[in-house]
């Protein structure tokens, strides 16, 4: 067979095989669509009232599955460490479009507003949708705005190191205090009345942990963003 023929045969048979594979998978998934089941989340929703937090997703993220959140924080920490290791020694890249006076003034005006919004989302995370991760990323986007518009801006390194160390150590210490006092790691040892549901101070350790998560995520994402701008300008 000529090359063209064999190429066409291979392509067509490849397509036929993948189409058969895709159709089998789709058939399987569509035949087994789940009915409305009673899942574990429904049980957790009933337990949520004991913790006195209005946003059930926050209770699940921070308390019922708080160990996964601790692991996720560890992953972000290691990733930020790794990016700093890879790119930390380079110089900052040049952005060819010069930023002018209007951009610099506007970004300096916007940065406090963005940070305030991020802190609001972080602190009210247990009362309305939001939380530590979301608030931290909003703060990091404000920092990104400043990094793009100002050539000489650098995130203050020692402040970031202090914040992230404090937040991480406090999270693990809260868990260990729970282990010491109530014999269960990460237990809710501060008072959490159901009467307080909907107020800012409610739910025991849950808002505290989410604020710590927000501080850590915000500072680490700022460091990641700054390190990613550091590649040499001829790349």
């Amino acid at each position, binding site marked *: 067979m000529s090359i063209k023929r064999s190429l066409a045969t291979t392509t067509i048979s490849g397509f036929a095989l993948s189409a058969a594979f895709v159709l089998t998978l789709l058939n399987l998934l569509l035949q087994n669509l789940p009915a409305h089941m009673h899942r574990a989340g429904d049980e957790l929703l009933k337990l949520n009232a004991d913790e006195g937090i209005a946003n059930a997703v926050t209770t699940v993220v921070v308390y019922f599955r708080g160990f996964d959140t601790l692991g996720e924080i560890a*992953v972000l920490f290691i990733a930020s460490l790794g990016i700093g290791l890879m790119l930390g020694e380079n110089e900052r890249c040049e952005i060819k479009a010069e930023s002018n006076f209007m951009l610099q003034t506007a970004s300096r005006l916007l940065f406090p507003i963005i940070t305030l919004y991020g802190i609001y989302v972080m602190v009210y995370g247990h009362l309305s949708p939001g939380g530590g991760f979301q608030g931290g990323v909003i703060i990091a986007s404000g920092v990104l705005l400043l990094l793009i518009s100002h050539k000489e801006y650098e995130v203050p390194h020692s402040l970031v190191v202090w914040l992230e160390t404090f937040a991480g150590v406090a999270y693990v210490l809260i868990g260990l205090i729970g282990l010491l006092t109530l014999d269960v790691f990460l237990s809710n040892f501060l008072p959490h009345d159901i009467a307080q549901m909907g107020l800012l101070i409610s739910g025991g350790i849950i808002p505290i942990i989410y604020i710590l998560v927000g501080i850590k995520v915000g500072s680490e994402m700022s460091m990641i963003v700054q390190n990613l701008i550091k590649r040499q300008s001829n790349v």
Partner: protein
Amino acid sequence: MFEYLNQSEVIRSIVTVGSMALFFVGLFGLLSQKHFIKIFISIAIMESAVFLFFIGNVFERDFTAPIMGEGYTNVAQMNDPIPHAMILTAIVIGMAVMALGVSMAIEYYKLTKNTDIDKMNEMRH
């Protein structure tokens, strides 16, 4: 016709077909592309497809968000909070791994000016 489309089995079928199409687009990109950044984008597309499949199949159309306040303490009609927590964790972890991958790719390019995975042969066989 809209009553037919609003049934939960039909919505779930549409979400399943769409998210699996996205998954196979990502898988095709992973297997056929040679540039690192395109491979990372394909992996990110596959991850988004899996999250879409997950959320689409656990969502109940008539239920409300799992947030309690005045008047919404009826827990039986609230959506499940566990998938939200799982996908939040998985998105953050996926983003962290991709950011690390991009930084390694940048450093590799700086040292060898090569972006093609077929031509990565620093190690002689």
